[in-house]
């Protein structure tokens, strides 16, 4: 079974530029999550999708971050414009359903904003 795929693995941009990350969850998983992991901290949930609908985006900085999952499969997370404090690893995870215990994580995208 293929795992959660993410691209790119690394990205370096200057502040005020925009960037997009892509995630393809495990086939059949209805729930998709985006997490932000700042160095030295645990992952923090940014947004949760159930199929193509948003379940929770309460911690997403909506003035600069956006995410979509139009067809209920893969997802894109965008930052526009980026700030220095956005430097982090962005992790995508998926689970069978929104009450399922186990989440499967992708390898993450390491973003450096200079």
């Amino acid at each position, binding site marked *: 079974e293929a795992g959660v795929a993410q691209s790119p693995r690394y990205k370096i941009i200057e502040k005020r530029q925009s960037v997009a990350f892509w995630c393809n969850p495990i086939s059949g998983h209805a729930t998709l999550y985006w997490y932000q992991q700042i160095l030295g901290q645990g992952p923090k*949930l940014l947004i949760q999708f159930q199929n193509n609908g948003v*379940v929770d985006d309460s911690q997403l900085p909506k003035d600069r971050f956006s995410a979509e999952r139009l067809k209920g499969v893969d997802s894109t997370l965008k930052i526009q414009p980026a700030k220095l404090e956005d430097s982090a690893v962005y992790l995508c995870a998926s689970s069978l359903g*929104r009450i399922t*215990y186990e*989440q499967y994580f992708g*390898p993450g995208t390491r973003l450096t904003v200079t």
Partner: protein
Amino acid sequence: TQLLEQSPQFLSIQEGENLTVYCNSSSVFSSLQWYRQEPGEGPVLLVTVVTGGEVKKLKRLTFQFGDARKDSSLHITAAQPGDTGLYLCAVREPNSNSGYALNFGKGTSLLVTP
């Protein structure tokens, strides 16, 4: 949001030593999960504990859930270099739309040298 405190923050030991890491909170958990995150990868679920006083073993790893379900520990016997990584504890919390989000601690970064 329940605050999870993990200790120690960093641990560097030699191969063959034993170690214990801790996850504590002032709140009562219905369940708790432990994850291991290797460098450049996403977290991988090791175990879920749900019953106060529960002990689970996974090869050389022993997980214990406190009787009052406010704390948990992870003990590694005869550590090996392959155990190197970030150990995260996490609890599920209901979010705004009948789903659940994972709330992670900051993690214990373990380095095992040959």
